[in-house]
């Protein structure tokens, strides 16, 4: 299969503008007759559904949540990037484009990223107009802050709840379209299949989660905006309900899963504390500005800490290994996410972890407290302050800077991070991989589009901070409303799609059989236990560091686990009722297939890049070694129960020179 990216001709800076100006459009009178299904109501889905409604299309929008406002975009904290250059610090569309391609370790598609950088500016305007209460300066204008990996201040934010405020903006725009009758909203409906007629996406099968009945929904095209698949690892910073099911069912109907092995693992999360743990909580990256990361030098000390016989305070300064400062003197504790995560793993693998489970490192603020305390004493004119006074003054400064984070940490762990170093460990956070799409965000299935985290296109092998919100809203507000045109303009003579067609009836039947099958197994193990085991396999063999041998082993383990699942899982209740266990089972079944493809993808990619680190492909110092000659391609996987197949889209870099990232 040839993958056509459909990137328009012309210079990168004017491609999008020219293309937009010349593409086929759908006239308003025809829009009224064309139906669009949008699945998912996060930033990408809600903004797309609202905008389609405004344009006059007939929209049906679906979420498995009880309300569109609960989508996991709501949990994003830091901010949203935009090349506004309001700070006059040299930002530009090109700079945002360049930073994003480089940050993605040169594995994203240039043309898509440039368009993202262009429309980033419109997003801020739109959100302000919707009433998003962004942070402001005293003069009443918008405030900015800096984020990792860039040299300008281009991040807009609303306290620590930027995702919430942007999502509520999109949710309100969507609510307005619902009230005007332009969007029909289906809450508590989960997409379980894609329906194709004559090769085109023409609707979905969605299960009404309240009644348990599968229902048929026809449309002229289908837009997926169903988020990432980080929960394949069981433990992640994703919400409990986040899943791959809608995207995966589309893959099983012929769409392709691109670069599934690109996973972002965030270095500063609160570590796992026990087997019962259900999810992980992120601690903001900003803490690494003042926190020093370390583990004990001696394994004996670490073991004593693990047994609870010693604490961090018992370890002498000379017995501590500040390994980031040692390995990366130029960037120290502020190396990028992928590098910091891998280094923590190395330390714990050496047996130097500092929690009961041995999977944690310290993030220590004692030096910052001392430093701030001394300078506060000077500025307050206190002469010869004693140690207690210095600590008191220093803690006050740290509290002012990070008080809310310290409080959150204490709430979860019941430890006082002012007195005892924080314990942190990397956790799965975001998935750069996703459904393969072309420049129009259309998959290889005509009429099936994919937006936001669910697609693969903009972040390459590693995403920069504050870029996820930007991509979700760019796709939904400013890209898909146009790029759906080339497809729909050819459908203006297509009558309403018939939900009673054989294709719909067959898909509905198949969906019901799948659900019945899960219930009928009546085995002895819970869905949760399978999910947990899958997560452990993924983390062990397809986590922060991978190698060919482990990936092969991991793949086999997943295949065995999948077989065991279909023999021994226990799902209580019935199909035709409200049944949360059945919902979980159906999602875990999909993760059990996706996991295998992730292993295969990681195995196929004989190089290290961004979040994908193959131990065999490292420099002498243990850094990621890319292979642009052989692997500058997108790997798009076609599902097959026996042997999934890879299709390749070669990536061309015409406007940015390929370079090695170094942080030493």
């Amino acid at each position, binding site marked *: 299969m040839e993958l056509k990216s459909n990137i328009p001709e012309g210079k990168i800076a004017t491609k999008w503008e020219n293309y937009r100006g010349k593409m086929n459009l759908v006239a308003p009178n025809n829009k009224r007759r064309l139906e669009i299904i949008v699945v998912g109501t996060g930033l990408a889905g809600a903004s797309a559904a609202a905008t389609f409604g405004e344009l006059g299309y007939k929209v049906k929008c679906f979420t498995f949540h009880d309300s569109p406002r609960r989508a996991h975009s709501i949990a994003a904290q830091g901010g949203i990037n935009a090349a506004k250059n309001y700070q006059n610090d040299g930002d530009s569309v090109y700079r945002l484009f360049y930073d994003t391609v480089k940050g993605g370790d040169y594995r994203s598609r240039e043309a898509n990223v440039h368009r993202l950088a262009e429309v980033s500016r419109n997003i801020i305007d739109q959100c302000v107009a919707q009433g998003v*209460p962004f942070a402001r300066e005293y003069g009443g204008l918008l405030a900015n802050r800096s984020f990792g990996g860039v040299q300008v201040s281009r991040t807009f934010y609303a306290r620590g709840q930027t995702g919430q405020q942007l999502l*509520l903006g999109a949710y309100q725009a969507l*609510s307005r379209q619902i009230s005007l009758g332009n969007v029909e909203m289906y809450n508590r409906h989960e997409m379980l299949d894609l329906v194709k007629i004559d090769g085109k996406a023409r609707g979905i099968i969605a299960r009404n989660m309240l009644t348990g009945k599968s229902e048929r929904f026809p449309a002229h095209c289908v837009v997926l905006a169903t988020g990432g698949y980080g929960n394949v690892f069981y433990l992640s910073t994703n919400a409990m309900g986040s899943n791959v099911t809608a995207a995966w069912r589309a893959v099983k109907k012929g769409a392709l899963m691109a670069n599934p092995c690109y996973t972002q693992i965030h270095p500063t999360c609160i570590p796992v504390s026990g087997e019962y743990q259900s999810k992980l909580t992120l601690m903001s990256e900003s803490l690494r500005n003042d926190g020093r990361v370390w583990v004990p030098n001696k394994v004996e000390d670490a073991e004593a800490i693990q047994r609870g016989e010693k604490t961090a305070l018992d370890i002498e300064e000379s017995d501590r290994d500040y390994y980031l400062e040692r390995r990366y003197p130029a960037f120290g504790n502020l190396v990028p996410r992928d590098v910091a995560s891998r280094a923590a793993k190395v330390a714990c693998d050496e047996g130097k972890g500092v929690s009961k489970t041995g999977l944690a490192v310290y993030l220590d603020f004692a030096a910052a407290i001392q430093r701030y305390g001394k300078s506060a004493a000077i500025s307050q004119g206190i002469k010869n302050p004693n140690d207690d006074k210095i600590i008191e003054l220093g803690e006050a400064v740290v509290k002012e800077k990070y008080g809310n984070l310290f409080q959150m940490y204490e709430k979860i762990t019941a430890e006082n991070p002012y007195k005892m170093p924080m314990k942190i460990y990397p956790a799965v956070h975001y998935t750069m991989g996703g459904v393969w799409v072309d420049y129009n965000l259309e998959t290889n299935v005509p009429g099936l589009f994919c937006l936001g985290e669910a697609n693969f296109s903009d972040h390459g092998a590693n995403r920069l901070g504050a870029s996820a919100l930007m991509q979700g809203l760019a796709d939904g507000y400013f890209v898909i409303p146009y790029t759906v045109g080339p497809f729909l303009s050819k459908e203006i003579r297509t009558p309403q799609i018939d939900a009673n067609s054989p294709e719909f009836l067959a898909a509905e039947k198949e969906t019901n059989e799948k659900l019945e099958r899960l219930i009928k197994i009546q085995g002895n193990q*819970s869905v949760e236990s399978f999910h947990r085991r899958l997560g452990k396999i993924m983390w062990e063999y397809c986590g922060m560091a991978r190698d060919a041998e482990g990936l092969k082993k991991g793949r086999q383990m997943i295949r065995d686990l999948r077989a065991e699942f279909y023999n021994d899982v226990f799902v209580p209740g019935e199909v035709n009722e409200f049944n949360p*266990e059945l919902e979980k089972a159906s999602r875990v079944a999909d993760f059990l297939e996706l996991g295998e493809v992730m292993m295969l993808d990681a195995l196929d990619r004989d190089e290290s890049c961004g979040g994908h680190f193959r131990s065999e492909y490292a420099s002498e110092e243990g850094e990621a070694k890319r292979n642009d000659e052989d692997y500058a391609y997108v790997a798009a996987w076609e599902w097959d129960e026996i042997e999934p197949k890879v299709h390749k889209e070669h990536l061309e870099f015409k406007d940015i020179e390929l370079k090695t990232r170094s942080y030493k």
Partner: protein
Amino acid sequence: MKIHLKVWRQRNGESKGYLEDHQVEADEHMSFLEMMDVLNEDLVSKKETPVAFEHDCREGICGSCNMVINGQPHGPDSGTTTCQLHMRSFKDGDTVVVEPWRAVAFPVIKDLIVDRSSFDRIIQAGGYISVNTGQAQDGNAIPIEKGRSAFAMDAAECIGCGACVAACPNASAMLFTSAKVAHLGTMPQGEVEQSTRVQSMVKQMDLEGFGMCSNTGACEAECPKGISITNIALMNRQYAGSVLGSEKSV
């Protein structure tokens, strides 16, 4: 630690509910919902039906979780959602009663899950600014005073969980509705429609069957995000002004 749970069970909206007794072996580091997971794993292992409860982000922002714990929405700790509550807030041997939100406008779906779509309909009635994609002017064209913007943000932090309704003796949705009215109406972009917005949203709130506000302040006390009842006062004032003085009545 051993916890004696009394959990509300209700098969569906039509059936009669009851409190069911369970013993759970918990760990003080568990979150309250993880303790519920342990209970459910145990029920599944005995081939019984697990307790249905709503949850998603488990970090206090999505607004899904909604348990009345020992009579208090989101439990004993202040400024926390159910998912942020930890078992160390309880003692070994404690009896803990877990119930759903109780309000006419939040009918029970199953066990601890209620239908909060009435909140969506209140927002649909006017909880937005009527601007289409692409119509916006430059973001910095409308300066907004820092304090004013912060006031709007305080109100905008509402997570739509419904604890305010559950806490209110009249099951009133005034705190929820007023938070949105205050958020949008405080900013110049939202002022334009404020008069019709406040009337439409209040009208919808009444239609949904929420009770009247009698200023007990329970909503503010139980709100996990600390939304202030000042918003209610603001909405009352604007509502009166709108009904009596507006050119248009909704």
